[in-house]
């Protein structure tokens, strides 16, 4: 209990917030690492997921691959990448992208596939091109599920981004590594609390986004 209080005191101490090693700077770094990892994973996985969901082809192969990637322990992958790429933020970023891809991919293809088949068929029969079907029908109808995938991925990445501090001086994970080395448990716990709070905030934000996106598909409530 005292450790917990000490941790809160540590967080509340304005002296710990400023400067290049301060909480503000590390929070921003942590957020930036998370954002870059999720965006990179999205750039890769969303188009692929849309392709699989729309054509209903290659799903077996890609799901198996994504499952295999999921099974790789991130810390192990990170160590391997760090040995290859050296010290810096590149290795943890790559490991985080690998962590995020399966969730984003699953959200994307499941979202596209969730579009009502009758509506998709009618859209095609009316003369929408395949691209127009994706844009005008499948994406709006699947947006909620797709954002759900992003939400899951973000949550995993923001928690795991602490590992960025394993090979570089980046993010809130630094407090955990420093604290562990110096046996400064309040500082360690403070780092963990900050990560948890950040994760919860991001999750709330994305839950709202998911809600909005889902409403694209179910425009039934409200006054007509």
């Amino acid at each position: 209990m005292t450790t917990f209080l000490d941790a809160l005191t540590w967080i509340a101490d304005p002296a710990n917030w400023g400067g290049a090693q301060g909480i503000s700077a590390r929070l921003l770094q942590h957020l930036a690492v998370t954002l870059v990892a999720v965006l990179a994973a999205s750039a890769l996985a969303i188009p692929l997921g849309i392709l699989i969901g729309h054509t209903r082809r290659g799903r077996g192969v890609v799901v198996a691959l994504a499952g295999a990637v999921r099974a790789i322990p991130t810390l192990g992958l990170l160590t391997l990448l760090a040995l290859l790429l050296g010290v810096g933020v590149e290795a943890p970023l790559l490991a985080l992208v690998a962590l995020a891809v399966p969730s984003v991919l699953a959200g994307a293809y499941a979202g596209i596939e969730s579009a009502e088949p009758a509506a998709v068929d009618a859209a095609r029969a009316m003369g929408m091109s395949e691209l127009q079907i994706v844009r005008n029908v499948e994406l709006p109808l699947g947006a909620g599920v797709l954002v759900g995938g992003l939400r899951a991925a973000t949550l995993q990445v923001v928690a795991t981004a602490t590992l960025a501090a394993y090979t570089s001086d980046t993010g809130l994970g630094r407090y955990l590594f420093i604290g562990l080395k110096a046996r400064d448990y309040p500082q360690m716990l403070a780092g963990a609390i900050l990560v948890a709070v950040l994760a919860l905030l991001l999750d709330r934000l994305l839950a709202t986004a998911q809600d909005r996106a889902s409403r694209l598909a179910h425009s039934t409530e409200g006054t007509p």
Partner: protein
Amino acid sequence: MGIEFRNVGKTYRDGTVAVADFSHVVASHRIAALVGSSGSGKTTLLRMVNRMIDPSNGTVLIDDEDIQGLDKVRLRRRIGYVPQAGGLLPHRTVVDNVATVPVLNGTSRATARGNALDLLTLVGLDASLASRYPAQLSGGQQQRVAVARALAADPNILLMDEPFGAVDPIVRRELQDQLLRVQAELGKTIVIVTHDVDEAFRLADDVVVLRTGGVVAQSGTPQSILASPADAFVRDFVGADRPERTLTTTEVDGQRLVVDADGRPVGILR
């Protein structure tokens, strides 16, 4: 002229023969009904006209032009399509659903919406429903919207796949009447697929009765089919021997009453 099926067949990769060898001409500005039970290939034939399905052999011609050589998307935009149920875009309002194809064709949204409102009136819907979403409408209203949407780009051809199959009999009757009124006004070439002989007889100028695999059992006007069914299959399918089709007259209170084979009154003979 019109739509010509010339020896078309459809065999799927697993060897299933949906349609063996079908030839028929649908005359312009008329309503043709393809009628048969499931497995008769009627929907397959319908979907060949807008190339939702390409035949494995044979050709489909529209106004003497082989549609195999045409761009699918452009072909479909000049053919109206009414699916069985649903098929409206659930995330778009009624008016935007109707305006879909004109907007795809480059008509401005405002113009397309204006025309869509006129079409809603044409199919018997109140303009106040325009801003609703499909899920807020009854099944019958949704099918009216689907008909309005199919007419929006003013196509010459209208394809209807069991369009009134999912609504109750009273609403179905209203929708059929509405379609006949619209047809009297617009004179489209309509192909309608149904398993309901009564619907085919009520709507179509020309009925094609199909056996399994798209084999034509008989084609002709409803009158000719009912008057002289080609064989036992057609006779049974159109229910020529059903009590409600075997009418006699009887005299009650000085009126000549038409009754069916069960003795139930159907109408008065004038």
